[in-house]
Structure formats: C-alpha cells, structure tokens
C-alpha cells in the first residue's frame, strides 16, 4: 500500500515561483528588452525588504505572538542618528554604520524590556515604542532630509562588472542568517523557544537571552537597512520607513516562516521580496486603474499563501 503523492515544491519556493511568473508577465507586456533592468531594479529594492524581513523573521520565529511593529520608526530613527553622526563626511562612514546598528540594537533591547518587564504582548509593546521612536526622530531634525556622505551614496550604487554590490552584500546576510538558523546553537535554540517556551525552559535553554538576541538582531537589521536605504535614496527622511511595516511581516510569512513561531526560512524571504516588487512593477506596467491595482495586489497575496501546501496541523 504505497500512497503516491505529487511532489510539490517546498513552501518557501512559492515566492520565487510567483515572482518569476510576474517577471515573465511584465516583460512579455513591455518587451523582452526590459527583462534585465526590471529584475535588477526588483533585486535592489527587494534587498531592503530582505534586510528588515530577516530581522522580523528572527522575532516571528521566537514564538507565537512575537512580532516587531517598530521596524519603520527604528529604521527612520537609525537613519537620522547615523546621518547626523557622519555629518556628510566620508571618513566617518564606519562611525555612521555603527551608530545605525547601535540605535537599532538599543531599540530591540527596549522592545524586549517592555515585553518582559511590563509583560505586554509584543504587538502592543513594539507599537507603543514605535510611537516613541517616531517622536525621537521628529526631535532629531525632522524638518529636513539629512544627506549621506558621498562615499555611502556611491557604495549603494557601486557596481563591479555590471553587478551591483549592495544586493550581493544582502545575499551574504541572508546566507549567514540561514546558516545561523540551521547550524548555530542560538539558531536551534531560537526555533525551540519558538515552538514551546515551557519545553525550552526544561530543555535547559536560556529562553530570555535567546529571545532578547532575536529582538536585538531585528532592531540591528532595521538599523542596517536604514544605513543602506539612506545611502541609496539620498538621505534620512521622516517617512522613509513607513513602507516597511506590513511588508516586513508579509515577506517573512510568504517566505515560508511560520507565524506561530518555531520555524523559519531566510532564503524564502528573497522570493517573497522579489514577488512583492515584481508584482508592483507588473501592475504599474499594465497601467490598470489604481483601485483594481490594489484589489489585485490583495488577491495575489492571498493566492500565494493559499497556494502553499501545508499539512493540517492537529
């Protein structure tokens, strides 16, 4: 009695498959000459979503209910602090990077403290902090866009042999995250904590430290994204992070990470990020009316989650 089952692709590949479909549809519509440029633009902007998504993934994987809604404001605040620290000087670029990462890490720490000390659900704690961080950014010179040093702007668009370096760097980050999840002690412990906190306690895992690291990493990733994004788009602006609130969650879940925690996929985030960017490009290219565009966006998101096969969990 052998039951043959159709070999379906793994859940995390669906982002890539859908992204490919959008890419083909776009280029078929606009002419195949545009294929390369369309893809490379999706990769560049996808890279920013991937950075914030990777951070969000660690948090989401750390257990049901864990989520970081403060990413957009942490991103904005980090960008302001970092640009201020550099003051447009090329020799301070490293200082700026460290400043962005430090602000992100501190924000992650504050999020975690509110969650543990005040015993707030993460969704509320990070929301409340995000309001506070936003105020910090307002007070940090919100009346102007702070400009990045030339060196940073150049790095953001730097190409070697026609290939842009920044997305490559982000791919390295993704691979590191994937290895950390599979092969590092912290990564395994994170997935254990995400599946069951009591079981993790009794398996000797320092639950709090593991989760703290996840939140700090998430903030740090937002800081990194802030640094790169400010370099790429010409500075720190108050609303630069807004687009990444829902997108950071969506790319993680569509990328094959379980929202209930305990299971994560770093590579899949790329597929989901490409899907999102190419979907927007496709709908823009088709020139459909905006209401229909939004409608189709929603339908496609639901379609892709519904298409992913999953066993009925009992």
């Amino acid at each position: 009695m052998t039951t043959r089952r159709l070999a379906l692709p793994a859940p995390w590949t669906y982002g890539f498959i859908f992204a490919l479909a959008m890419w083909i549809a776009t280029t078929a519509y606009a002419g195949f000459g545009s294929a390369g440029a369309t893809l490379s633009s999706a990769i560049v902007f996808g890279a920013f979503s991937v950075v914030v998504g990777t951070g969000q993934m660690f948090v989401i994987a750390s257990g049901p209910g864990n989520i970081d809604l403060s990413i957009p404001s942490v991103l904005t605040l980090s960008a302001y602090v970092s640009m201020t620290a550099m003051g447009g000087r090329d020799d301070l670029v490293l200082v700026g990077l460290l400043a962005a990462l430090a602000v992100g890490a501190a924000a992650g720490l504050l999020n975690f403290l509110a969650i543990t000390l005040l015993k707030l659900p993460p969704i509320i704690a990070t929301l409340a902090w995000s309001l506070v961080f936003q105020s910090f950014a307002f007070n940090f010179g919100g009346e102007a866009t702070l400009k990045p040093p030339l060196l940073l702007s150049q790095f953001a668009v730097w190409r070697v042999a026609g290939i842009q370096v920044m997305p490559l760097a982000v791919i390295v980050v993704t691979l590191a995250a994937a290895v950390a999840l599979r092969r590092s002690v912290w990564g395994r412990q994170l997935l254990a904590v995400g599946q069951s906190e009591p079981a993790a306690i009794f398996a000797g895992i320092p639950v709090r430290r593991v989760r703290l690291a996840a939140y700090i990493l998430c903030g740090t990733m937002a800081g990194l994204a802030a640094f790169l994004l400010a370099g790429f788009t010409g500075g720190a602006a108050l609303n630069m992070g807004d687009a990444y609130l829902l997108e950071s969650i969506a790319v993680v879940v569509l990328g094959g990470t379980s929202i209930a925690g305990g299971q994560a996929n770093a590579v899949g985030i790329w597929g989901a990020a490409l899907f999102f960017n190419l979907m927007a490009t496709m709908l823009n290219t088709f020139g459909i009316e905006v209401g229909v565009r939004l409608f189709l966006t929603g339908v496609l998101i639901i379609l892709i989650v519904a298409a992913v096969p999953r066993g009925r969990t009992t």
Partner: protein
Amino acid sequence: MADIAAPRPSRSLAVPLRRWTGVGLPALALLIMLAVIFWIRPAAMSYFGFTLLFKLAIPLVFAALAQMLVVMLGDIDLANGAFVGLITCVSAVYLADQPLVAVAIYVLLIACYGGVGLLIHMRQLPSIVVTLGLSFIWLGLAVMILPAPGGHAPAWLTAFTGWRPPLLPLPLWLAAAAALAAHFVVSRSAIGAVLRGAGANPRAVERSGWSVLAIRVSVYAASGFLGVLAGLLLTGLTTSGDANIAPAYTLLGVGAVILGGGAFTGGIVSPVGTVIGAMTLALAGSLLSFLEVPPTWQIGSQGFILFLVLAGRVLLGDKPS
C-alpha cells in the same frame, strides 16, 4: 481526601483579579484621563462635553468588537480598518439614493468575511497574511467605488448620530448597549461558551461534535457585521465616505482588545473590557490636545500612555497574555 482538596491559596484571588484587571484597569485609566480633562477644562463636564469627547470613539468601539471576535478565535484581522473605510464609501455613495443596493453590498461583504474565515480554516492559513491581503482588496474596492473622499450620508443616518437622547449622551448609550449585548452573547450565552472554547482548543470542540469550520465562518461574518455597523456610524458622524479614513482602527482595535484583558492565545476576550479599552484609547488622543504637549512629542506621548495604562497590569500581578 486531603490529596485532592489540597489548598492552593493564590488561586481564589487570581481569578477575580484577572477579571477585574480586564475591565477595571482600562476603566480606571479612562476615569483618570477624564479627571485630568475636567480639571483642565471644567466646562467639558456636561452633556455636550461628553458628547464631543466620546462621539468619535463609538465607531472605534464597534470596530474593536469586530476585532475582538476574530482575536477570540486566536486570529487577528489586519483588514478591519480598511473594511470600515470601504463601508463608509459604500454608504456615502449608495445608502442615501439606492438603499437596497447598499444593503445588498453590505450583505455581500459580510458574506465575503465569512468566506475569508472559510478559506483560513480550510487551508489552515495564517490569518495575519490573509487579512493583510484582504486589506488591499477592501482598499481597492473602496477606491473603485469612491475615488476621492466625498459622497453624502443619508439624512436619517446623520440625524441618528446627532440625536440627543435623554439622560445620557448618545455615545454613552451606544457604548453601554454594545458592551452589554456583546457581553451577553460572548461571555454569558450558551453559544458564547462554545465560541470561546473553539478559540482556545478547537480540537476539543471539534471532538465534542461541533463544526469549528462553521464556527469560524459565522464568527468572521459576525465580525464583518460589526465592521458594517462601525462604518455606518462613522459615515453618519463624518457625513461622507473616505477610503483612507480608518486604517488606524486596525491597530487601535487590537490595542483595545488587549487593554480590555484579551489575549492572542484565543478564547480569552472581554467585551466590556474591549469597549472600555476602545474608549480609553480614543480619549488618549484627546488628552494630549488638552495637555498641550509639544507637537514633536505628541506621538511619543501616546506610546507612553499606552505603557502607563498597560503597566498597571504588572503592578496588579496579572499574568502576561
């Protein structure tokens, strides 16, 4: 039989405390905020003042109750705010002149909500992403129906939202009615027990012969219905429709549910707490304008108010949710 009846001293206290913190804490926060406002502006302590203070909290109350139903099942609805926006558009465009069309659209939309529940259940999908996608669908539909803010509310609707009933201002009557009705259905009724059970342990409820599928579909539809009510009230208050009017309701609603003692684990919600939580959050925004906080700190102060109110739960030794 000493072994069975072993005393557990903490337990007898913990439960009423938990129940109390669900309703009492936001209620206390609400009273403190009101006290501050009245202290700054005694004139606000009047029928007229109460009406103005709470008028715009009422649609949020209904939106929060809609969110509460979904949270009760262990899910979350990120499309709640967009849906309320869509309802204001439908109402502002059709309700005055073609009421039957409007009602038909409401029914269809409620059915869609039920369908989303069906999809989530059948395919075991994470509600957070499905409703995220759904929010784009609602917004898209709203923009198709009403490309820019406008339209007009039917006279009877604006008359209703502007009505001045005896004894208490309309917002308080509506909030009390909503809280009592929801409390009766969710916390007291026989079917309410099954619904909350299905949120906490669907397997056990399924094993007792209930269809959790049917439960999820009907609860989502009920949530859609409350969303329609929220949208209608909002249309009446603003006399028009706007696709982007209420995105903030999504997270405010979630906040109200949690503030009111609800938990994301499913099955733990308090309708009365949610209603008071919604009014508290709505008033928090107002408090800031009374306190004349500097503009750059206004947003941050809202965060701190949230911390203050919720930190009360820790002081009272409540369990994390």
